[in-house]
Structure formats: structure tokens, C-alpha cells
């Protein structure tokens, strides 16, 4: 009896998980359904599959430009967070920094800042600097939350590397830069990958700042373009479904290709004291 129960458990769990996936796959199916069959249920499955919604999104909507904007802003935000965050994380983890605890607490606290509280001053700042509707505005706004996250994650990863390694490198005559390049660098690389992935994802997904600081196709990101997806007389559900699938492409690639780094970053962010 017990063996039967165990044998049934695996399939049951898989069925439960398939149920979890229904919303995503339903949207995928919708994006491939002919227009005339969208509002008709049953049947559940379409009579044929079509790419007309994807063609409409690429040829008539603002999404292609938004994909480019999101990609550019995401890459620049990630690069900035790493360039500024790596040295800071190293110093926090290794060097005798006055008030380290207070600094760390401040950095953690700033990851918890609600964007709804900082959106009004940042809006005035962006306006005063003449940066409305530019990539720069969003790169800066997104750095406000990706930088503290990056420092926090990387400081944790660096602390996990035994200090003795650096000491023996120094004994062997390696300078600080050589130690960073040849000893710390390779060991912290997976941590950097995790931090970079999370920074990119959070920038790609961010909506409130992107919605507030943009005014046209020049800088609107994917979530904004999707939220503002135009419908003149009726809502184009098929096109929206196609657009939301395209908006998830980087997420799907990261989840499938770089899953280990994503999970490492996710767990490290929560577990590092």
C-alpha cells in the first residue's frame, strides 16, 4: 500500500506543478490563436496556430523599441552596479572599515526603501537635470536599488573566500592587484554572475520609475509598453499575449540557462546575515 502511494506521489506532484504553469502556457497558447477564436471557449485548443499576433507586435507596436530600451538600460544598470559595487563590497568584506556594521545596515536598509517614497524626489531631480524620457534617468533610478543589492550580495560572497588565500598570495610576493586578478577574481566570479543576473532582472522588470520618468517611445521600457498597450476599439488580447511572451524572453533564457546562478543569488540574498 505504501509503495503504491509513493509511486503515485511523483506524478501527483508533477500534475500540481503543471497546474502552476497553466497561466503562463495559457498566455503562450493565446498568443498563437487566430483572432476569431480568442473570445470563444470551448474549445480550449485552437483549430490552427498562427504568428499573426507576433507579426502585429513587431510591425505595429512600440514593443520592439521598448525591448531595445530595456536591454540597453538593463545592461548599463548592471555594469554600473558591478563597477561601483565590486570595490565597495571587497572593502566591506576585507578591509578595516570604520563603522562597518552601520554601513552594512544602511546598505541593507536602502534595499528596502519603498520606491513610492523616493519616486517624487527622483522625479524632481530627473526634471531639474533635464533627463526626462532618457535612458540615463532610468539607469540612475534603477541603480538606486541594484547597487545596494549588488554590494550586499558580493560582500557575502567575498566573505566566504578564506582570507588565508590572500595572505599566502602576499607571502608569495603578489601585489594587491595581482591578488585580486588571480586569486579573488576566479573565486568570486560565480557570485558576480549571480549579482549581475539579479540586477539585470530587477532592472528589466521595474515598472514604477520607468512609468513615471518616461514620456515616449524613446525610453519606454518593456513593462511600460506592455501596460500602455494600445487598443483603439477593443483590447487586442492576442497581441498583448504575444507582447507578454516577448517580454518574458530574457527571463526564460536566464531561468533555463543560468538557473544555478539565479538560485545562488536568491538564496544568498536571504541567508547572508
Amino acid at each position, binding site marked *: 500500500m505504501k509503495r503504491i502511494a509513493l509511486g503515485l506521489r511523483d506524478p501527483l506532484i508533477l500534475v500540481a506543478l503543471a497546474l502552476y504553469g497553466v497561466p503562463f502556457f495559457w498566455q503562450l497558447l493565446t498568443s498563437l490563436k487566430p483572432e476569431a477564436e480568442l473570445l470563444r471557449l470551448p474549445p480550449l485548443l485552437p483549430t490552427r496556430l498562427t504568428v499573426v499576433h507576433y507579426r502585429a507586435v513587431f510591425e505595429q507596436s512600440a514593443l520592439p523599441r521598448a525591448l531595445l530600451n530595456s536591454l540597453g538600460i538593463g545592461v548599463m544598470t548592471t555594469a554600473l552596479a558591478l563597477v561601483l559595487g565590486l570595490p565597495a563590497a571587497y572593502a566591506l568584506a576585507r578591509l578595516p572599515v570604520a563603522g562597518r556594521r552601520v554601513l552594512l545596515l544602511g546598505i541593507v536598509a536602502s534595499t528596502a526603501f519603498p520606491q513610492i517614497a523616493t519616486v517624487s524626489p527622483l522625479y524632481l531631480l530627473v526634471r531639474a537635470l533635464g533627463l526626462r524620457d532618457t535612458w540615463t534617468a532610468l539607469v540612475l533610478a534603477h541603480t*538606486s536599488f541594484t547597487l545596494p543589492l549588488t554590494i550586499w550580495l558580493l560582500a557575502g560572497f567575498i566573505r566566504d573566500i578564506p582570507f588565508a588565500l590572500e595572505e599566502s598570495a602576499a607571502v608569495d610576493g603578489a601585489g594587491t592587484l595581482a591578488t585580486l586578478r588571480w586569486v579573488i577574481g576566479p573565486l568570486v566570479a560565480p557570485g558576480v554572475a549571480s549579482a549581475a543576473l539579479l540586477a539585470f532582472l530587477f532592472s528589466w522588470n521595474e515598472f514604477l520609475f520607468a512609468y513615471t520618468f518616461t514620456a515616449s517611445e524613446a525610453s519606454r521600457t518593456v513593462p511600460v509598453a506592455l501596460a500602455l498597450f494600445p487598443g483603439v476599439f477593443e483590447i487586442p488580447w492576442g497581441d498583448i499575449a504575444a507582447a507578454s511572451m516577448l517580454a518574458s524572453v530574457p527571463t526564460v533564457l536566464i531561468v533555463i540557462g543560468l538557473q544555478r546562478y539565479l538560485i545562488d543569488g536568491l538564496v544568498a540574498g536571504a541567508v547572508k546575515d
Partner: protein
Amino acid sequence: MMAPALTVLAVLTVYPGIWVLWLSLGDHVPIFDVSRFIGLGHYVFLATDTLFLRALGTTAIFTIVSVTLELVLGVLMALALAGQRRGRRLAISLLLLGWAMPAVVTAKIFEWLYHPIGGLVNYVLGGAVINWLGDPYLALPAIILADVWRTTPFVAILAFARLLGIPPELYEAARVDGAGPVATFTRVTLPLLRQILTIAILFRTLDALRAFDIMFVLTGGGPASTTETLTVHAYRAMFQMLQFGFGSAIGVIVFGLVMAVAWIYLRLLQRDEATA
């Protein structure tokens, strides 16, 4: 080495954090160049403002219900994953996908699922014609469900990572001592999950208090303001009514709530460590 990062953080987070306090103490309408100091006026008004108190209540319900559901379902998912032999990687991929997608995409997916005529939810309910997002009683539960779908994987993955670290000997010992599945769960598994779950609750509570995208896109706060949380209320005040000072005051209150929750949890964690 820290100077560049700290300078950027000072400009992008500390400075706005202080500026918003100042903004909340005045009447500010940027497009008309109106800027007038009024002290605590907005806060005094908010203390008895029914719209604000209602948004506060909606935020509390959203936060408590969604975090509770995410916690329970997340632990169940983690246990299922840990007992799973085949298809575990596929399962984790699916869960991570739900968590890592833009919240706006989740909102669009659920908007279509909830569609009165073409929606899958009504079809599964036997062809009912329920206007989920347009009904004042159903809209908030519908939004909570979408949020639970999106964020339960976060709890599940954290709990699962912790479960992998529990040595099998502990379960073996529990079995030898005659503990059934329920006793094993409450006496062995749950105590070991306690710390990671405390942290997961902290992260989830902070995110739920700050949640904006999903209700803003799904309902915009409607119908009849039944899904208008503090964040949506603040946003509308600032960018639709152009009351920057008033909206900032609501933002500051969200800020205060988030910091208060973070502080309480940190104290709890410290006390845990002291007794452990």
C-alpha cells in the same frame, strides 16, 4: 574603494529619502511652480481621511492574506520538491519563471485569465460570467491570487534550499523513535525551517507593503477604490492629482511602515539567535 559607491548611494537613496520628508511638509504642485511649507498639515489631515484609512486597510488585508498564503503554499511546494525524484529541475524552472517574470506580465496574464467571456477561470467554473476585476468584492481576492501565484516560488525555493541541508540521519532517527509524518514535520522539519521562513516572511512582507505594479495594471485601484493600496493611492495623488506634497506624505508613511516591519523582524531574529 567605497567612496564612489557611497557617493552614488547618497545621491540616489539618502538624498531622496530626506527630500521626500521635506516635500511631505508642504504643498507642491510642480507644473505650476507652487511650493509652500505647511508643516504637518498633510499628516494631520490623513489621520482622519477616510480614503487614506481605507487604503491603509486594503494594504493590510493584501499584505496579511497574501503573505500567509505564500508561506503555507511555499512550504508545501518545498516539501513536494524535496520528495520529488523525477522532473525536479523542470519543476524548479517553472517556479522560477513565475517569480522572475515582470509583474506587469503577470498582471496581463491574469487580466486575460479573468476575462468575463474569454477567460479560462470562468470557463473552468462551468461557463460562469463573473466580472472578477470589476466586482468590488472579488477584485481584491483576484489580485491577491495573482500575487500569490507570482511570489510563492520565492518562499518555496528558499525553504527547499534549506531542506536540502537537513541531514537524512535526523529523519532516520525520528523514524526509529516512532515519529509519524506529522510529528516528523512539526518536531524536525519545521524547527529547522524556522529561521529561513522568518527571513522569507520579512522579504515578502516588505514587498507586499510596497507592491504597486500588479494592482496598478490590473485594476488601477478600482472598482470603487476597493483595490487601492497605499502605494496606488500615493501615486494617484502625486501624478494624477499633481499633489506632490500630499502624495509624498503617503509615501513617507509607507516608508515608515516598511522600516517598522524590518526593525521588528530584525529584533525577532536577534532574539532567536540569542536563545539558539
